[in-house]
């Protein structure tokens, strides 16, 4: 009995020692906190761990709580940087503590996946894609679909549409694309992280959509490129702005940004869906890191600046492997000029 008590006391002492000395150890490592989008989380966590290997004195801590949460925390000033899959709205910018810079960090594509016997590679014209998700094209053997897919035996079966049920950047990009190509979609449904879908079932997360598509014969849904390639899902080519059927790869997604360079606004708050360029994949997006123009702490601000420079150059090498697309060089050049505008106290 006594022994047990003694052991408890020893344990308590050890715990006290740890608690006393721990702050000492962590004081030398600076913590930079960020929160936001889940879509870029795999590459961000890779970046932060690789960056920590280069510079052990800085530790980036990123919570993937969702873009909405990231924006809220940035507004409240509880994080040093935010991250979002959709650019902040004017009203959200107004609620922030100061001017917020948007830095595109990496790009992503959204693919249209389906469950058909034999998993043929399909072509989707813009009109057909919006009609399917609008509920206007109801069967796979619709002549409009058959016209774009000569030689493919499309079954005489109803199309089961699957979409994301959780609010997500993926849905934002996909509905942004549909709003861009279809007036009817824009007026009846619109663009958002969650929308009032005219038809279809909802699956939670990429894995939920994938599960439903795999489980439901003759279904169609949309997921991120990286998720589709990782899980070997079939996905179709989508008609580009210039009328070609473009497959989704890291290159064609990057080209969507290159096509948008001419019209790139200074704050990078831009949609790059359906951007010009023959082989620019039309359902593509940036994901953004959100940083205050006026930094409160010199050390943290400098750490963020250094990290941004690294992520936009060396960091881009990790993009393709993780299912993202690297930023085109033109965009990186523009961003470097913007990074120089971050003010340190």
């Amino acid at each position, binding site marked *: 009995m006594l022994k047990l008590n003694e052991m408890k006391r020893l344990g308590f002492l050890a715990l006290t020692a740890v608690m006393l000395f721990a702050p000492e150890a962590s004081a030398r490592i600076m913590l930079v906190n960020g929160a936001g989008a889940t879509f870029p989380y795999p590459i961000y966590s890779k970046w932060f761990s690789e960056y920590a290997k280069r510079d052990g004195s800085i530790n980036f801590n990123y919570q993937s709580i969702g873009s909405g949460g990231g924006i809220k925390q940035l507004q409240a000033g509880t994080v040093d940087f935010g991250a979002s899959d959709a650019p902040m709205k004017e009203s959200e910018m107004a609620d922030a503590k100061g001017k917020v810079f948007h830095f595109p960090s990496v790009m992503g594509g959204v693919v249209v996946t389906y469950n058909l016997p034999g998993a043929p590679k399909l072509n989707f014209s813009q009109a057909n894609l919006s009609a399917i998700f609008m509920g206007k094209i109801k069967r796979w053997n619709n002549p409009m679909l058959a016209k774009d897919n000569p030689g493919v035996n499309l079954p005489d079966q109803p199309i089961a549409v699957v979409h994301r049920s959780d*609010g997500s950047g993926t849905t934002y990009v996909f509905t942004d694309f549909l709003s861009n190509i279809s007036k009817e979609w824009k007026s009846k*449904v619109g663009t958002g992280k969650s929308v009032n879908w005219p038809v279809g*079932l909802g699956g939670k997360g990429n894995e939920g959509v994938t599960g439903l598509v795999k489980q439901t014969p003759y279904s169609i849904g949309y997921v991120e490129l990286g998720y589709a390639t990782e899980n070997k899902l079939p996905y179709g080519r989508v008609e580009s702005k210039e009328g070609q059927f473009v497959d989704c790869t890291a290159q064609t997604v990057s080209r969507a940004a290159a096509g948008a360079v001419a019209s790139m606004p200074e704050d990078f708050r831009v949609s790059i869906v359906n951007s010009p360029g023959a082989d620019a994949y039309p359902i593509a997006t940036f994901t953004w890191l959100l940083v205050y123009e006026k930094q409160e702490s010199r050390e943290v601000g400098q750490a963020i600046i250094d990290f941004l420079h690294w992520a936009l150059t060396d960091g881009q090498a990790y993009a393709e492997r993780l299912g993202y697309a690297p930023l085109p060089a033109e965009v990186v050049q523009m961003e470097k000029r913007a990074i120089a505008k971050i003010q340190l106290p």
Partner: protein
Amino acid sequence: MPRSSSLNWQDRLFRWACLGFALLILGLVAALAVELAWSSRLALRAFGFSFLWTQVWDPVREVFGALPFIYGTLVTSAIALLIAVPFGLGTAIFLAELAPPRISEIIGFLVELLAAIPSVIYGLVGLFVVVPWVRSVASPSVDAVLGWLPVFQGSPYGVGIFTAGLILAVMIVPFVTTVSREVLLTVPRSQREAALALGATHWETIWTTILPYARSGIIGSIFLALARALGETMAVTMVVGNRPEIHPSIFDPGYTMAAVLANEFAEATSNLYLGALIEIGLVLFGITIVVNGVARLLLYRLHDTSAVHV
């Protein structure tokens, strides 16, 4: 004299401490209600009571109505109870009255294990095993026999209200079984012996003596299970279809209150949208209170009637 006063002092401390804890719980519930109402004030003001019976849920245009979610929550929970109560109660009777002690122990352990499985596992099993079964077996065969009733019309999806109810049923069976078994075990031996002595068969003893004696405890277990079903989130959202519409058939996709909160809360940015989601939480809170209230009422009534009979 000094000793008794010190006892008094300890007694009083104990009494006040316990009262404090009880009040703390009460305060917590009240604070929860106030916080929910306050956080949803924008939606309360914008939609008023029509929030409860309109069916459009459009985050882009910020038009919100909760009826499809309320409907989905109530119907999935009702289906779950319809399936889980006979199974759970039957198992409890078997474990408490019929099974040899050793087997009873093993099965009891397995049933309790069901309660320990994380709900996301139930969701995955639902999605990959139950959904295909409902789509290819349950829905078409029910449709073939009862399809003339709109409620049982088949649907090509497999996900939907019925599938969610089925998964929920498996999840809440342990609540019914475990609590009911404990209650059945507390029925005094003299009650059984009296019934048997009067010439009742084993079945008659259970049906006329043991079950009525344990009635209030069993009903308590059912309401505990119902509360669990009303609030279940993860497993339901994976198999319910997440479609905010009301269809007549139980095989069609639907949505529940807990599921829409889990799905949309993280990415809801506008204040009205957040308010509408929190108001759904408020409605769910209200429904839970009503359900618990009804449970209490039922228990009181049962106690009264049994008192009259005795």
